[in-house]
């Protein structure tokens, strides 16, 4: 902490007072310490507005890699199921948005602030609304627990500095410093998507996901069924990135088994809704 603070003071001095030559001797040290303090605080705390802006940037990157599937009915449907699930999370008030990406790969992504995307490849492999709900609920859990936010806070956000990052997100600044910060933030976002989260965060999202699905009135075994599906599939069938960024599906099922016991039995008869799912998704 000591070292971080010193670093921040130095950084603040350079940023706030780029005064050449002997003028530096007139620096108001009280003001520098205040600036450093606010920088340090802003680095550790990202408010909800900043989180949402960051999430929008993040989702835009994903949408830059693959656009939305051109099926408004499907997009509305996934938003409806997702919004209903999110109402049973600890962050019902976020401006939740869900989307289906035009990609044959099998994957799903959460970003800070409640932007959640699932690939069309995965949508076409699932067989019921309860399975979709399980996957979306897992992603919702990441947002509730701010897993991605914490990951970027430790990396690019701290590196860029909260003030610069916020300024960039506010204005998507074209100024040299803004776009340099933007590039750094962008590569930080990509790094997390390619490296994945901590394993423990994934296990936690699974534990919470089955419960959020059950709370919303679905059969909670949709998510475990999707994990079983992954377990039967060869990696080269579009699961490469998912496998690189998540614990093996059998480990995730093991972890779920250890905590589930009989606790979900009474919800297992809740609807799976395969028919509506098949109809809207267009399964034959």
């Amino acid at each position, binding site marked *: 902490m000591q070292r971080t603070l010193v670093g921040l003071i130095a950084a603040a001095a350079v940023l706030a007072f780029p005064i050449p030559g002997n003028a530096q001797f007139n620096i108001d040290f009280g003001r520098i310490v205040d600036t450093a303090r606010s920088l340090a605080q802003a680095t550790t705390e990202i408010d909800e507005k900043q989180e949402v802006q960051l999430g929008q*940037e993040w*989702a*835009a*990157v*994903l*949408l*830059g*890699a693959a656009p939305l599937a051109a099926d*408004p009915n499907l*997009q*509305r449907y996934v*938003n409806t199921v997702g919004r*209903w699930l999110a109402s*049973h*999370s*600890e962050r019902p008030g976020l*401006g*939740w*948005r*869900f989307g289906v*990406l*035009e*990609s044959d*790969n099998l994957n799903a992504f959460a970003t800070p602030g409640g932007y959640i995307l699932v*690939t069309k490849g995965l949508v*076409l492999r699932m067989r019921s609304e309860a399975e979709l709900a399980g996957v979306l609920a897992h992603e919702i859990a990441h947002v509730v*627990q701010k897993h991605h936010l914490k990951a970027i806070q430790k990396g690019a956000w701290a590196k860029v500095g909260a003030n610069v990052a916020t300024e960039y997100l506010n204005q998507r600044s074209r100024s040299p410093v803004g776009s340099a910060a933007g590039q750094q933030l*962008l590569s930080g976002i*990509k790094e997390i998507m*390619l490296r994945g989260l901590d394993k423990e965060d994934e296990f936690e999202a699974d*534990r*919470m996901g089955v*419960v959020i699905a*059950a*709370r919303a*009135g679905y*059969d909670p075994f949709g998510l475990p*069924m999707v994990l*079983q*599906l992954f*377990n*039967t*599939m*060869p*990696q080269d*069938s579009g699961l*490469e*990135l998912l496998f*690189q960024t998540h614990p*093996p599906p*059998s480990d995730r*099922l*093991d972890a*779920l088994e250890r*905590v*589930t016991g009989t606790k979900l039995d009474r919800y*297992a008869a*809740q*609807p799976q*809704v395969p028919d509506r799912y098949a109809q809207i998704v267009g399964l034959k």
Partner: protein
Amino acid sequence: MKAFVTAFALALALGCGVAAAQSGYAIRDVAVKQEPYDDATTVGKLAEKAPVEVTRRQGGWLEVKSSNLTGWVRMLSVRMGSPGGTRSGSSGLGSLFGIARSGASGAAVTTGVRGLDKEQIQNAQPNFAELQKMQGFGVSAQEAQAFAGGNPRLAPQRLDYLTASPAAAASDTPVPGSSPFSQ
């Protein structure tokens, strides 16, 4: 002609979702029940890694067939696929997941657009026009509630998160019941 009949029968089986059983295995010694309940009669036992065919699911239970018995086991005590994982080649999937197949190769049907591989993410530039579209598809909490009240009805339930361990529970997850039901 014979080949045609076989192909027709196969198409029928796939199309109707009739179980072409999935292979799987027990992850440990597990009791096999006559019905999908804990207190149902035990009809036998599967040894660890014993191969089974999974024929259907009911809630958290799978109906399995092994060489000498048929019955129900908890879904999480079985892994679909084969021990050590199916990581290349044909996956041997059938109708439980109903994956569309093309031709005799058994390759899953794909439409050719891959997307979202490592490289595509690496090279992606933010697309704010698509983000704008995504914003437009948003659904309100009220609309979602109306949907849930339809048919089939999705009845809200109150339940706490599953805890990893008593110690982790306290720090890891939000306080159960703090605000998840405020709609």
